[in-house]
């Protein structure tokens, strides 16, 4: 019958429309709870797909990344960065600038940075710096609310540094692997 296809199309649209309101009953008014949100956003979700940000927030997967940060070691309370420059070699947009410190006693290059700058307006969040860092000193952050009224420009060593506990909190699996690797190395 001519026109049957249009009727079917409208039927599909109507079905979707009805599903939008099913969630309210399905979760018995607890549509905004964390469990309901997880279900709504999974392969088993059926109703409205939108998330009412900022009242509702999705949990990010562990590997989710945007801007890098530098890890302050829990033992030494110093930055883990040794100013080796590998992140600079890896950075596609060349937004990392490192000045290597000189040892005040010997006058030779030291294994820590005198200055570390990262142009956050240029960084594309590819994660190659974190991937290639041999000292686990640079990691990718998950803090995504970075809008500001002024141009952010450079972040220096202090602004980039975050404690090891923060890294452990946002990357639990990767942190456990890292610790296991370190323990194995110490054993040798």
């Amino acid at each position: 019958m001519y026109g049957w296809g249009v009727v079917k199309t409208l039927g599909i649209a109507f079905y979707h429309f009805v599903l939008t309101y099913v969630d309210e009953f399905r979760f018995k008014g607890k549509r905004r709870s964390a469990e309901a949100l997880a279900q709504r956003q999974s392969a088993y979700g059926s109703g409205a797909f939108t998330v009412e940000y900022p009242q509702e927030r999705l949990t990010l997967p562990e590997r989710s990344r945007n801007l890098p940060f530098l890890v302050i070691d829990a033992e030494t309370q110093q930055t883990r960065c040794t100013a080796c420059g590998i992140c600079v070699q890896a950075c596609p947009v060349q937004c990392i600038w490192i000045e290597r410190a000189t040892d005040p006693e010997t006058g030779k290059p030291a294994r820590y940075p005198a200055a570390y700058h990262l142009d956050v307006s240029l960084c594309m969040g590819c994660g190659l710096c974190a991937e290639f860092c041999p000292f686990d000193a640079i990691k990718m952050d998950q803090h995504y609310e970075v809008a500001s009224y002024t141009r952010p420009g450079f972040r220096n060593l202090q602004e980039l540094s975050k404690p090891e506990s923060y890294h452990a909190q946002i990357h639990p699996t990767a942190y456990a692997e890292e610790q296991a690797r370190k323990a194995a190395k110490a054993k040798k």
Partner: protein
Amino acid sequence: MKSHELMQEIFPVLQQRFPNLTLESNGLHVAKRQLVDVARYLRDELGFNYLSSVTAVDYPQRGVIDVVYHFYRISGGPELVLHVEVNRNAPVVPSLTPEFGSANFQEREVWDMFGVKFEGHPDLRRLLMWEGFAGFPLRKDWHEAYYEEEHKPYSSRFPKGGQPVMAEERTPLRDNIRLPEGWLAQDFSYDEADLALYQRMLSANRDPNKPLKTDEMILNLGPHHPSTHGVLRLAVRLDGETVQHLEPVFGYLHRNHEKIGERNTWMQNIPYTDRLDYINGMTNNLAYVIAMEKLLGWEVPERAEYIRVIMAEFMRIVNHLVATGFFGNDVGIYMTASLYGLEERELILDLFEAASGARMMFNYMRPGGVAADLPEGWIERALALVEDRLPRKIEMMQTMLTENEIVKARSVGVGVLSPQEAISLGCSGPVLRASGVPYDIRRAEPYSIYDRFDFDVAVRYGGDAYDRIRVRFDEMWQSLRILKQALRSIPAGPIQAKKLTPLLKLPAGEAYGRIEAPKGELGFYLVSDGSANPYRYHIRATSLINLGALSQLTRLAKIADVVVILASIDLTMGEVDR
């Protein structure tokens, strides 16, 4: 069969006819006066009827520009590479456009970027830069406005990077710009830049025996138009409502990706490839690393191959959901179908984000494997999607878009492309297969582990906009088939065989890696001089070459159908403009 084996086999046959032809490690070298004859002989006698890629490489030390052609047989098999070396100071090459329609845009691009003149080209205008632009950007001695150094990593960054300079402080309006001698801003007019285009618009496809002397009009659709899917401008010459000639104008997103690629190291290019066809980051990554692996000669571990196939097939579903959904926008199911498509895309992007850390700019593939193993529970999540949800949803969209009489009225018989034209114009992917040519690189020259999976090459025979949409649905079903097999049989094991370093060096030589990307053949032509930076990094952009068919497809169509035909080709401007 490998490419060099094919060429060794072909070479004696060709040499009998063309004694001056030589076979070198990188392909067949031909003198420019013989080029058209050789190309014709290859097409008519030896079956190499598909000219896939035309590009050039600049060698200032030797004073030559090497124009490179890649030919295929549409029946399958590896590529045949043809080189024509011309003097760098006055480069002239005979044009292949009259023989192969696919050379049209690519020769214009080579003229634009390298200044190689193609004799006999019907319309040799600049493609990406504007008329009146001084210099040829991809020549080695041309420097861009923000030029710092020949290659990354820049020496100012380490170890004395204590006084950083923000990118915006190196603006071209201060001291970092080179203007042509004697150039004054007040003398420049934008009309001059468009003059060549309008001359072309007025002269092309004119029928001298037109019975009625009616007035014609030139209409510009775009660059900002809701149905051009980006910043694409279509200059259309109309006679009443009928399109007499259509000329796509683009380059608004041009950032000289290939020049950036030559400044970058090999590894730094991987995240940049995500930004070509930004809908399909994974397949862009994959094509680039496959080209790199051809040069490196690396083997990829089993598990990594499976992960690559899974990601590529999910990516194909994502692309086709977006393409068919937005096709709905243009035929009048405004936003409904596209949002249903985007909903499923979100779920697939969730999977990508869990594995790679990003939803669009994945940066996931690496030469010799992938960046990270799949996280725990990933396969189960993917299987739930592939076995339960996606079949239902794809079927729903298919009903919506292929059974609807309004969609049929708008698309059946609109923009018909014959198989001969499709091959000659170099179309690939769903555009080619909707015209009845069952050419799929996953079967024609299997890469990765596609030869292990059971799937059919989706093909439709109508060649119109409707079939181009239907073939995309067929492909989604085939992708689901591959995904089911791959997700069930993925083995355990390592995901990366080699230790990678940021300054990975590739052995000297050249390679052309291509894959069946969702939009068609995506190829990376890489030339290495043995260092950590590419000597030449060229992308055979799928969307660009499929766009080349638009002028042909819209001839004598109605202006309202232009939008439908454009949507059925499925373009991403990030890839067209590069």
